């Protein structure tokens, strides 16, 4: 759980960099944007806590697993931030660089699938755990491949 918490924290930093990518050389806009981003993140975390809390409230041992559900909520909030990152670039009219797009897409794959994988693991019998683990590892590898492809990439992609 500590490793997962660390991973979730690291992703918040990556998401902040994705938001700041179009305004990296624009200090005034970055100064305006930073507190707004913090407020939006806080709102998304609260909404995610509500979402995850209402889903898992009827679970046995709910009150003993608060930390676990909090991490799930943070993960879900990151899905919202990934969506907002794409919408932010679209609003500014900025085309995401290949590198940023690849990271955002790969990050989206991971953050979007993790809550489902954990719920699946809780629902299945122990003999099927390895199926979920392999699926989750597969998603991670696909995300890494996506990052690598966009970084090393693809001169022939039109408009890229």
């Amino acid at each position: 759980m500590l490793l997962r918490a660390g991973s979730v924290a690291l992703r918040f930093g990556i998401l902040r960099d994705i938001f700041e990518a179009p305004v990296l050389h624009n200090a005034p806009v970055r100064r305006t944007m930073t507190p707004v981003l913090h407020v939006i993140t806080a709102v998304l975390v609260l909404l995610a806590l509500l979402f995850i809390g209402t889903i898992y409230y009827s679970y046995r041992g709910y009150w003993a697993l608060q930390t676990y559900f909090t991490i799930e909520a943070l993960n879900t909030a990151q899905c919202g931030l990934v969506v907002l990152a794409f919408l932010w670039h679209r609003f500014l009219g900025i085309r995401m660089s290949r590198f940023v797009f690849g990271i955002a897409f790969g990050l989206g794959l991971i953050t979007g699938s993790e809550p489902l994988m954990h719920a699946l693991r809780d629902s299945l019998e122990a003999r099927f755990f390895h199926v979920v683990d392999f699926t989750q590892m597969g998603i991670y590898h696909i995300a890494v491949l996506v990052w690598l492809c966009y970084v090393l990439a693809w001169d022939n992609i039109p408009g890229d």
Partner: protein
Amino acid sequence: MIPLITLAIFAASFLGFLIFQVRSRYSRSSVSAVGAALIPVDLDAFENLTDPSEEEYLRKNLSAGEFRMVQRLRIRAARMYVSALSENASRLVAAGQSARSDSDLNVAASAQEIIQQAIRLKVWCLLAEYRLMAALAFPNFLSPSNAIARRYQAVAHLATHLPGRAAA
């Protein structure tokens, strides 16, 4: 079971969103947006709509109810101008992005400057939109600002240095 179904729907929707982003990135329409002409905007008319002295004149010569009605009409018109300015800011960003890879270093540097200034303009337009919405709700207490008109003029002037720039 319910958490699993809910999270599966959530994950599927999110995956659909990501796939849509990939498709829209490489669609023809996103590429053809570059080079679109700027929307003509009458900045004098916009400044007139947001002129504090004009507002003060109306406030003195109209009843409270009439002033609120007229002011709301002026603010709605001002919002249309801000919307056009925001769209032009997006087109300036697109023009800057296309010129950024120009072989002429001066043009590339100008393009980068235009992108940054156009992004600032876009954010100002968003803040101006929120201010106008608040002024629409409370026309007696809040007034629109015309500062964005001067900022737009400065950015549009920068764009004149780009080759084959979008006409204003």
